């Protein structure tokens, strides 16, 4: 099967890959580019642990073909922190204990980041609705919601 040469921006840096059409974006990110913050869970677009930002929208990278990211902008959890330190969303998850085992956390962070870009001053109901595509098998939702609320406040003050 003919491979496709693709290039896209990953966390602000240009990357290239040679992919089969059936290669999923999450596989390119984890195995080809070796950024393993983005996780694989259910692989059938239910659990949300593979969530990344594609062209400014949250998507499940297990259900997007790598060829579909060609020419696009991708953000993963590795792109959140800067030289100055953790992103406000990450800091809020630390302070509010927004994680237990941590498996769902990278996707929670990337989703929370995009959700707060779209809705900087959300109500609790809006947060629950906006984060509803991400499962936490530890069921630690309460502190995840608190962390998103806290991050919203921090980002508004910044």
């Amino acid at each position, binding site marked *: *099967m003919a491979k496709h040469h693709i290039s896209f921006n990953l966390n602000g840096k240009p990357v290239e890959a040679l992919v089969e*059409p059936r290669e999923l974006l999450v596989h390119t990110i984890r195995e080809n580019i070796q950024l393993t913050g983005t996780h694989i869970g259910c692989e059938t*677009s239910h659990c949300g642990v593979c*969530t990344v930002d594609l062209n400014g929208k949250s998507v*499940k990278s297990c*259900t997007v*073909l790598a060829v579909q990211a060609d020419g696009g902008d991708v953000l993963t959890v590795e792109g959140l922190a800067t030289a100055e330190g953790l992103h406000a969303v990450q800091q809020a998850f630390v302070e509010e204990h927004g994680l237990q085992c941590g498996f769902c956390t990278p996707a929670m962070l990337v*989703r929370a980041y995009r959700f707060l870009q779209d809705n900087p001053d959300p109500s609790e109901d809006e947060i629950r609705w906006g984060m509803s*595509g991400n499962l936490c098998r530890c069921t630690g939702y309460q502190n995840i919601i608190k962390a998103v609320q806290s991050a919203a406040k921090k980002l508004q003050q910044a």
Partner: protein
Amino acid sequence: MITSQFQYHKASSIEDAIQKLQNEEDAKLLAGGHSLLPMMKLRFAEPPYLIDINDIPELQGIDLQGDTIRIGAMTTENELIASEILQQHCPLLVEAAKLVADPQVRNRGTIGGDIVHGDPGNDHPAVMLALDANFIIQGPDGKREQPANGFFLGTYWNEIAEDEILVAIEVKAQKDNQGFGYHKLKRKTGDYAVAGSPVMLTLDGDKCSDIRIGLTNVAPMAIRATEAENLLKGQEIDSALIEKAAEQVIAACEPAEDLRGSSEYKSHMAAEMVRRSIQDALQRARS
């Protein structure tokens, strides 16, 4: 999980996609991919050729012309929710889209994909029946119009040929004497409906001059509860009449038993969704 091997083509136009559908054996269109790709990963589907229609401009956008709203088939669920035209003129579609899957899936999943895929659990088919929508379908010989009523023939079976593409959906703007209701019972976010019911009701004074009741996931495909509709049409709707209609809904359902419940349970839940949707539709049509 990895799919079988396939060739990938990004279509540049509707004509390009139709040509590939004609020339490539067993080719499938790739819309949002959130039904097709999971099926391919589980090897329930192994198309040798995928035609990606995500970058075709003619399949995008929502316009209002006169009292007709035209929705490009590749409009995503989140674009439906965000559309001011739909919020104002077709709120049923907005409320239905809000209950489809989850935020990430709604960024990729499209109204056209949901309609044509053919899974009885998909939400838009019954909504299209309630809205009396019209589909614009294009094939090698040009465009044709196809009413939603009569499009859904069975599970993964619609009134569309192998080399045709759903291009757009047309619905009428809601009038002042109309009201909608939408209720969907699901076990959790992202699940298909146990049962769902979109309802569109028109009042003439106190009487119901027209009503369309769609039913999701209680038959091999989306259906209308026509016997229940006939009971209500021309009548002043009260709770006794809604009860009689609910009995007709139960009789119209033939759901498959699965982890979401028994056939009897699902039929009764469908009736309850219809009761609630009619109440909401009545209230909205009156105000």
